[in-house]
């Protein structure tokens, strides 16, 4: 009798943990490319996922930041500008929660690209960081030329455009989650506190994935 119970217990546990381990993996987003190659004389088809290409921007401290600075790091990216009258204050009120949660983790970063490089110079970005109460290197505010920023936005599946006739920039308010292999693992509506709570939960899930733990 006792044994039977233990057996049922083990089975139930196995069942449960298999369920959770399944849901404990985030999807990989972006375009998939089937690559066919010949391994040991046999044709095999592999799927490669879209990755964020190399880039070069300058952060609020005047340091040059490239994709190499993010090797071995999970990060979240977004697009904003400091004089944004509409959604940016709301986005960064929510991003502050992400910052607070992971600011002591050196393998995590937040990258906020300004889409108004003309006004948002490095000193303006530093001032903004100071007023936001952001210190250290966990949240970088990135300056770059417009072409580069708009180009990288496309890689993140985001759309940003030139000023509309009212003088405002149109841009998406998404937070994009990138893994250590520089693949897109989630997009979240940065203006919605509930979605940002999900982002925080997903970052924890992602950090625990064996592939991420192993990556350097």
């Amino acid at each position, binding site marked *: 009798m006792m044994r039977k119970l233990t057996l049922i217990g083990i089975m139930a546990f196995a069942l449960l943990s298999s369920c959770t381990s399944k849901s404990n993996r985030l999807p990989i987003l972006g375009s998939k490319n089937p690559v066919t190659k010949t391994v040991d004389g046999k044709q095999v088809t592999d799927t490669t996922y879209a990755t964020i290409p190399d880039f070069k921007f300058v952060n609020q401290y005047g340091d040059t930041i490239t994709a190499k600075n993010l090797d071995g790091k999970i990060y979240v990216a977004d697009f904003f500008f400091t004089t944004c009258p509409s959604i940016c*204050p*709301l986005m960064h*009120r929510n991003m502050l929660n992400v910052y607070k949660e992971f600011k002591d983790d050196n393998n995590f970063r937040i990258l906020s690209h300004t889409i108004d490089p003309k006004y948002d110079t490095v000193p303006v970005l530093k001032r*903004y960081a100071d007023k*936001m109460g952001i210190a250290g290197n966990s949240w970088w505010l990135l300056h770059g030329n417009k072409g580069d920023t708009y180009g990288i936005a496309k890689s993140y599946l985001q759309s940003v455009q030139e000023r509309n006739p009212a003088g405002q920039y149109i841009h998406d308010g998404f937070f994009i989650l990138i893994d250590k292999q520089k693949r897109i693992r989630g997009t979240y509506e940065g203006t919605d506190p509930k979605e940002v709570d999900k982002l925080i939960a997903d970052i924890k899930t992602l950090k625990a994935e064996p592939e991420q733990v192993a990556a350097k």
Partner: protein
Amino acid sequence: MKVKLIAGILLLITVVVVSCQSDEQVEFSRYYSGGSSIYQQHCQNCHGEKGEGLQSLIPPLTDSIYLKNNKTLLACFLKNGLKGKIIINKREFDDEMKPDELAPIEIAKVLTYVTNSFGNKMGVINLQMVEGDMAKCR
């Protein structure tokens, strides 16, 4: 007869007083509830759902003393914007709020909402008051 007359007068007075009060109450509710949705659309992204502001970037709307001292200037802040150093809740803010294209009646409603939410209790700021204040904007 006398008693009836007195009772009648008393009744009349009560009716007048009650209806006066409720007129004010009606005006207040009309401004306040209209102001709530204007706040959500035009102010909340910056000043926050609870008027909490954002770090040292955007001041909170919870400083009742500042709001009282500047009551007649608030309409001008919204019409012409506000720039430079201000002290809110004993903290310094030095940034800029751009003007918003709100009609005077919308300004009255949103100010009634702000000055009677987040712990503030200043009563109605109606259209006549806003128009008077706006005529004196610097």
